[in-house]
């Protein structure tokens, strides 16, 4: 069980949250026509062994989207901030 330090609510268990995927992915410009870039954006993700920056939604708490550092190897949780705030 992860314990996530929600910047709004305080420390809560993982079961109040839902995972939202890699937070470093950037959408191509809307006029981008190269299929490979859209393919990468929509489908292709790295599967890192170590530090990962990811979205979490405090869906059964304050309902805010968070950006959190998590180590996929150790499950160590690092810095966590609201997704709407610049990091």
């Amino acid at each position, binding site marked *: 069980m992860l314990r996530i330090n929600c910047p709004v*609510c*305080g420390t*809560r*268990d993982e*079961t109040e949250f839902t995972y939202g995927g890699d937070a470093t992915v950037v959408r191509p410009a809307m006029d981008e026509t190269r299929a490979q870039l859209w393919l990468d954006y929509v489908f292709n993700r790295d599967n890192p062994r170590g530090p990962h920056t990811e979205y979490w939604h405090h869906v*059964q*708490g*304050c*309902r805010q989207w968070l950006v959190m550092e998590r180590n996929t190897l150790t499950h160590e949780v690092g810095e966590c901030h609201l997704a709407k705030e610049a990091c």
Partner: protein
Amino acid sequence: MSEAISVLNGATFDGFVSIKEAGLRGMISVRGDFAAASFTKAVSALTGADFPAVNEAKFAGDYAILWMSPDELLILCAYENAQADADKLAADLAGEHALVANVSDARALFAMSGELLREALMKLTPANVSEDAFKPGQVRRTRLAQAAAAVWMLEDGSVEIMCFRSVGDYMFKLLCNAANPGAELGL
């Protein structure tokens, strides 16, 4: 007008804590900008209660203001007055970027009392409900087993639990099971 009936019509259970389906209560969902004085003033003027900080519940007579998220509150009021109160608040907030909705009939409410209620709650919620972390005047928006819920503590140390009406029966069974005589944790 049809006769309104709460989800379990006042069902009760006496376990190592007492559980009661708390009947009909007015509930008004309010969203807006907490930083705007016009918003906080309108909410406090309707209820007579102070504006709550994060994780807080403020009470004043029939009314309460519960913190739900950084831009959402739940106002509790008498069931009969909910629509009129919602209309009044919506009128007060006209022109603001705000939302007011009477959600009374979409919700179920339970009351739990007894010395060991923290033991029953901690079987169901991942939120910290120890004496240090959860006190009168505080609210936790969380989950109880598989259902979304909000739990707040009244001044007398009893708690109220709110969930969606559609899971009201499930919630009552959860609470009764957690409070089953002989199932105390013995902390």
